[in-house]
């Protein structure tokens, strides 16, 4: 017997409600029900970080987060970062400028972690380069060697604390 549950949550600022199979992961729900395909699946066991989303201000791998847990939560995906007219967020712009994007598959996950870092920097949190590495260490990337990703995040954070 398939079990369904009604999930009410806020996704990218919009209050939503849908019935999901209780066996679904949040990644399944976001990609399947809401077609938020910026949520990527690279391992489905929380090892690569491609499916990372922000839930109530913190980053989670949505592949190992049950959809039913999302009830009542505020969820942000990469699709929610653009401005009303498609303007890039500061982090997105810096990823473009610093050449932090290659195949692009890990990019949305990284951009969201970087967004969370930048938001904390704006509320006064300070980061050294090593601390930034640590904060970004939940994402695997095979294209960039992380070099330009770190550069982009470092630039954003240093501007925020300037």
């Amino acid at each position, binding site marked *: 017997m398939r079990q369904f549950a009604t999930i009410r949550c806020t996704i990218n600022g919009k209050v939503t409600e849908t019935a999901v199979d209780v*066996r679904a992961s949040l990644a399944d729900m976001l*990609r*399947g029900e809401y077609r*938020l*395909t*910026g*949520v*990527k*699946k*690279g*391992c*489905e*066991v929380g*090892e*690569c970080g*491609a499916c990372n989303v922000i839930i109530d201000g913190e980053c989670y791998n949505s592949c190992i987060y049950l959809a039913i847990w999302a009830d009542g939560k505020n969820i942000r*995906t*990469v*699709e929610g*970062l*653009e401005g009303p007219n*498609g303007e*890039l967020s500061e982090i*997105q712009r810096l*990823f*473009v*400028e610093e*050449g932090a*994007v*290659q*195949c*692009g*598959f*890990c*990019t*949305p996950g990284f*951009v969201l972690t970087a967004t969370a870092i930048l938001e904390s920097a704006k509320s006064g949190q300070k980061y050294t380069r090593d601390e930034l*590495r*640590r904060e*970004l*260490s939940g*994402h*695997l*990337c*095979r*294209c*960039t*060697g*992380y*070099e*330009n*990703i*770190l550069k982009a995040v470092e630039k954003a954070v240093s501007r925020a604390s300037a």
Partner: protein
Amino acid sequence: MARKAIGRSVPRVDAYDKVTGRAKYTDDLADRNALIAKILHSTIANGLVTKIDTGRAEKLPGVVKILTCFDVPDIEFPTAGHPWSTDPAHRDPTDRKLLNRRVRLYGDDIAAVVAEDEVAASRALRAIEVQYEEYPAATDPEEAMRDGVPLLHEGFPNNILERHSVLDGDFDEATKEEGLIRVEGTYQTPTVQHCHIELPTSYAYMEGGRVVVVSSTQIPHIVRRIVGQALGIPWGMVRIIKPYIGGGFGNKQDALYEPLNAWLSVQLGGRLVKLELSREEAFYGTRVRHAVKVHITSYVRPDGRIVARDAKFVSNQGAYGSHGHSIVSKCVTAFRQLYNDERAKRAEAVTVYTNTATSGAMRGYGTPQSVFGMECHADDIAARLGIDPMEFRRMNMMPVGYTDPFSKNVNWSDSFNQCIEKGREYIGWDRKRELYRNQSGPVRRGVGMSLLWYNTAVWPISMEVSSCRMVLNQDGSVQIQLGETEIGQGADTVFAQMTADTLGVPFESVHVVSTQDTDITPFGTGAYGSRQTYVGGMAIKRTAESLKGKILRFASERADTGPDALDIDDGFIVRKGEPGSALFALSELATDVLYSMEHSMHFTAEETVQAKSNAYSFGAGFAEVEVDIPLAKVRLVDIVNVHDCGRLINPQLAAAQVHGGMSMGIGYGLYEKMLYDPGTGKLLNDNLLDYKLSTIMDHPHLEALFVENPEPTSAFGTKALGEPPTVPCAPAIRNAVFHATGVAANENPLTPHVLFPLFKAAGLIG
């Protein structure tokens, strides 16, 4: 005059779509109602499937169809992403079926389930009962080569897929010279995997009686041919569509599961079937880098000059042929070209079928393995002779002016020395080689280096061709299409830069059609061999010139002058040699001509270029390490790659390409290795937790430097950069550890598992 696009770090053409999540990859495009296919993998490494009982599985809810190795067409097909050869003797080995009764690795594909959802498909897989006749498995090539070991494939005695040898000069005579010092070493490289973050994914359906496969591939036109071969249908009945892909690195330069996916859809009358691999399946079921063991014997004069060298390579091919035959020959080519032995060289290489994952193309294609052996060996020789390893290399490396008799490649410039100088200065070679001599504490530092040699594209081993189409819009902008693919490296952006400058339009006016669709896209063989800026560049140049010629003929009517007196600059028709002299806008001309009541013309051009040249690409890598001896652990302190890849089209993208290659090289040097259970042949670390892909915590700053000697044979002065950056890191790290500790490890990666026993043996650990 307009600002040139070439040489500028313009942002990637796909960057906006990728940072916003709008870029669509295969699974993003698949309809969510697609049927889900999953593969049943063997639980033995070597043997024969004698019976498969699907009865219980078929009754499970949601199961649509189960097909087994007893159902597939009796067709063996190749998978390597090589251009088709019209010479049957030069074709790739055809050694697998869509599903295989003859099981050759733990995890071989023996049946497939198509179900309404993934849970139903997984449950069905678990309910299928299989009976085998099991043979002893061999995971090691030297074991598989022994007489009496079961043959994986008929017609390959001792399981040897390919044997390749070269002999230059009179080896025996050369080694008789008096006073030569003989240095020997055996160097072993590991099996590693590409680990592109997007898993191999495809979906297939039929439309108009033809089968369409949308797939994450580097080589859509080649996959079309292979799907045709595997299904035994005319190639024109197959259509392959390649959207954005999440990395490939050579793994997707093979037909992976596209043939099976196409066949499953056909078996269901063309219903939409999606086949998405898991990470675990990607490790054992796709391709890996060949583990290669090389034994090198060198005969050297006391001053360091190499007189003769001999190398014996044994390569682990794994279960199926894929690219193996050509990769092992590339090991030999690299051995032959990097160093210039004064009198003779001899090499012999075999690649051997074993009951492990299939080895195929991976960034560097045999060169990382060969160069690891050679460059470890170089430091071993230098240490033995008591000379600086850098000087040893300078004395022996390929000289300026060298011309390869086979490829006709020429070493035009003093790239090696220029690269060495830059790296030497960056890393502080002279000072640190001295400073780190004779350390005694538990934590020691060292610096090491490695050269790298590579070539560009695959001529004259294979044919080299690229086609391009350009279409001018009413507003003077242009679409370009090539068969050459964007796989993350930035090809589309570089193609746009080349087009803009050749045609004389602003960079922003060039629209690259990123998706390849074999029904629409002009023929090109795709991303491999670091070929695309070289061969694709030639196609772009010729096509842009052709389009420009057409435009100027019409412009000349309007300007009342001969076409030869005109040019296009920054989107304007100008007098030749007078870039600022805008006569009228290209947009005006394009619109007027397209809608002309007299002679309407749709401005398009399409050209095919066959490259009959190749180009050397050179570089050097330097690493500084800190070794914590009691913990048997290496920390990479600093690393730099210096490349001469000719002219840089986009410096930022070029550096980014180098960073990624270095990261892969660091993994090769320090972390990554696939481990098999020797008893069962089962892969032990088939996930991203146990397979140690380096994280952002495991890298220091990655420094990418360049020297630019434009390549004379290249349309835009470019040559290989895609693969070379991976090559020098592992040997540079190994040599740095050697410098730090005096311990010469002869296998990579230099994990604590390797270093601990070595440090113990050397008395560094009590």
